[in-house]
């Protein structure tokens, strides 16, 4: 078997396609590194400026009521150091979560609540749209194409030349031949891929502007493993078609058409079809419900206020109740909208899993810490933090024996100055174990695809007549 693999390897190393593939991979990886080094420091700087500004504003507040009313300022998503692996559509995902207050009556506002605004950066961008040259592009599109071009003739070609017959005349089991060919192709593509990846990482890690820590390297290792698995999948597909078909040309046509439809078209077509299944709340609908909610709340409040003309304590308690209730309802509404939108995207993403390139995209995104899943994690982090922040306000108020304990009204809350350092700070975290959990399904699917194609190739090759 090693003999066959070695023969394949030497064959490939001398070929035109090996040279072209190497040049292509190196060129793309070099581009990727250069662009990353140019853009990443700017991104990181922007993030740091933004969080410093938010923190400064937060520190400037010492009054508990102010803290409770205005909330924790803008919360920013931490840019991933592995942005060069995949952009993951980060440019269209909001990197900041805002807080809003809404008006209940003319002079009564709710406390802060999380509201999710969106980024439509493209609505002013007149430059032509392109795909980012990142690892995902190199792996998803280019590597799979290369895999096809390396295997389409591996069996049909030998059959055309008649060397297959010669080889099988020796006492070599067929599966050994297949495995040998597979390994030969795998090694001859992985070699330039590995070198290109190493060059890319070398350039990126040598620069002072980008620091990769131990966890980043672990993640990169997993991404590389995913890339190799994906490569195997397309090699197996190539072998499958090649052993079923008599002619090189036919084999290539079939493979290219499969490649074009599954890699280029199916992900976006299926995503558009699947996103038509559900109709999340639109912004206009949201505005309407929001306005209705607060006008109803205002009427209710006014009606109940009538009965408390002479009772200042009750009045205060009522106001406090509505201020917090308004915030809770507003947050519930904006969550509802966000959840519906997320569900739509989630569905579309699961449907696109029919295409291996979408699976790989999801996997790389998960491990590089970019993209949609990462965004959901960010939103969850923010929601946890919001809870912590509100609890902090409650605790501070309870700790003050002089306070009337009516949260929502200035007179009803503790007047002791708060130490700004004690206010909880938002920290956007990423956890590898969580990413593993979200990625497990995709990883299994990828392995499954590979096993199916490889056993298909095996069966086809064993049963074929030479």
């Amino acid at each position, binding site marked *: 078997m090693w003999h066959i693999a070695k023969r394949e390897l030497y064959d490939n190393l001398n070929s035109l396609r090996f040279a072209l593939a190497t040049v292509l991979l190196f060129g793309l990886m070099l581009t990727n590194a250069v662009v990353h080094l*140019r853009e990443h420091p700017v991104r990181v700087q922007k993030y740091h400026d933004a969080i410093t500004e938010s923190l400064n504003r937060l520190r400037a507040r010492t009054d508990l009521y102010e803290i409770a009313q205005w909330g924790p300022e803008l919360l920013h998503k931490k840019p991933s150091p592995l942005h060069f692996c995949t952009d993951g559509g980060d440019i269209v995902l909001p990197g900041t979560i805002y807080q809003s207050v809404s008006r209940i009556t003319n002079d009564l506002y709710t406390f802060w609540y999380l509201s999710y605004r969106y980024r439509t950066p493209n609505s002013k961008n*007149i430059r032509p749209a392109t795909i980012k*040259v990142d690892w995902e592009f190199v792996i998803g599109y280019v590597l799979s*194409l290369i895999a096809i071009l390396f295997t389409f003739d591996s069996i049909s070609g030998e059959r055309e030349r008649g060397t297959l017959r010669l080889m099988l005349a020796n006492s070599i089991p067929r599966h050994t031949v297949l495995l040998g060919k597979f390994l030969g192709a795998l090694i001859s593509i992985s070699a330039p891929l590995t070198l290109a990846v190493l060059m890319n990482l070398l350039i990126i890690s040598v620069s002072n502007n980008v620091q990769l820590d131990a966890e980043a390297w672990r993640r990169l290792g997993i991404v590389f493993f995913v890339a190799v698995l994906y490569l195997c999948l397309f090699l197996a597909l190539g072998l499958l078609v090649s052993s079923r078909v008599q002619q090189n040309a036919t084999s290539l046509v079939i493979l290219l058409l499969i490649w074009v439809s599954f890699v280029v078209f199916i992900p976006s077509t299926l*995503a558009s079809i699947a996103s038509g299944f559900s109709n999340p709340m639109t912004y206009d609908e949201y505005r309407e419900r929001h306005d209705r909610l607060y006008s109803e709340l205002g009427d209710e409040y006014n009606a109940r206020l009538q009965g408390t003309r002479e009772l200042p304590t009750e009045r205060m308690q009522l106001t406090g109740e509505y201020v917090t209730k308004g915030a809770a309802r507003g947050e519930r509404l904006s969550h509802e909208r966000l959840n519906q939108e997320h569900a739509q995207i989630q569905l579309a993403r699961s449907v696109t899993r029919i295409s291996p390139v979408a699976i790989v995209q999801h996997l790389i995104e998960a491990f590089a810490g970019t993209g949609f899943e990462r965004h959901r994690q960010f939103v969850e982090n923010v929601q946890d933090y919001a809870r912590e922040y509100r609890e902090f306000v409650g605790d501070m108020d309870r700790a003050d024996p002089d306070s009337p304990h009516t949260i929502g009204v200035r007179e009803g809350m503790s007047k002791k100055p708060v130490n700004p350092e004690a206010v909880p700070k938002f920290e956007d975290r990423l956890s590898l174990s969580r990413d593993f959990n979200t990625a497990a399904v995709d990883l299994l699917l990828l392995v499954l695809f590979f096993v199916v194609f490889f056993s298909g190739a095996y069966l086809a090759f064993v049963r074929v007549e030479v």
Partner: protein
Amino acid sequence: MLLTLIRRELLDNLMTFRFAAAVFITLLLVVANTVVLLKDYERRLAAYNTALKTHQDKVRELKAYSGYELNIDRPPNPLSIFNAGLDKRLGNQVRVYHAFVPTLWDAKMHGSDNPFLNIFTSIDIIFIFEVILSLIALLFAYDALAGEREQGTLRLVLAQSVRRGHILLAKYISAMLCLLVPLLLSLLLAMILLTNNRSVSFSPDDFLRIGGIVLTSLAYLSVFYFIGMLISEVSRRTSTALMLSMFIWGFLVLVYPNMILAVMSPSRPPRAQVDSAMKQMEQIWEEFDRERKDFLINDPVPGESIWFKIGAVGGSHEYLAKRALALDVHFRTGLNLEEINERSEPQVPYAQNYFRFLEPRVISTAEKTWLLREQGLKNIFVQPASMDRILLKFSPVGIYDSATQAWAGTDLHGIRDFFDAARQHRQRVIDYFYDTKVFGTRQWFAGDKQTVDWNALPQFSFKRSDIGINTERALPDVCLLLLINVILFTVIFLIFVKSEV
């Protein structure tokens, strides 16, 4: 002789597996995506119609002239199904009022879609052609000459008194005829789907535009066929030719367009240029503000307030708005009163005087900053974008894309036509204001006595540019494609004539 050759080639090509596969896959992709794109178009059209209605109703609710602020909406272009270009992406509603000159950088999207959907790439029919047709053309061409050479049939054919040019021509014509089948068939099916849909209405001009798109597609197809033929001629062996064509395809279609922009283009606008333009515009508005305050101080009512001590229900605003990302500085000031106290009636003429003085100055200052802004927008946003498009044109895909966008009217020019129309509409409204001399009237800022007849104002209408202009915009790219065709053919011819068999 030529006809015999063509017939032979045609039969050869038509009976192959690749032909069947090509037709099948093109039809499948085009039909499936047309259905998806149609649905998308219907949704955008519905959103446009709702937006149009709410915006018109909103204007009718206004009481005073100074509040005039029409949100005008950009209708989705039905030809965006062919090439979406910038049509889907750029903002589709813009506010028009007298104190501001609107551009596409001030446009917004109406909120009817899930913004997260942007993480999926969207495709259109031309994108399918870009990828599939070029691939098929190369698959038809890679063995055109190398294959015959390997089989030895080329020698046989040339042994007879056939001119070499004729062989090339026969191969080219028959292959193009074959390639036309998937192109035309899929377009035909797409057209059947489109014309049977009630929400899509094509004008006669649109059919001509689609005709232009078909012609451009043909030129594109033939460029790739020639590229394949050249490779086939140069490499002499089918396997080498195949490998080379596939890598060249991958490079031209997949890698080059994405790579060149990543490498060449800076990702953010030049800071210094933006700052200086912003500063200049701010100065103009500050000067305007000084003049305004001088007037307020010198008029009989003491103080700088624009309320002139009028007791009324209503609102006022005075602010300088700055948005560096859109290179925009504008000043808004105005008074909008619903009710005026009986006792402050004597004060009203002062306000009238003020606005009679102010509004023509607001308009002229807005126009003065617009001149600066137009230049700045051109330097900072438009020029890099056109630079990008020129870089993309080093690959036939880029030329094809930009030509079809020009035909469809979804290119930058097409979108800017709409904003030109918006500016013209603003001009008409201003002319109307001048003609009816509303600036000095009470109705300008107060809606208590009589309300405005909004129907008397000029109405906004937008028609896409006519076919002549589309042709003019598409022609350079189409000519470029044709030129590449001619050059490639000449090169192939020269090599083939001189080559030994």
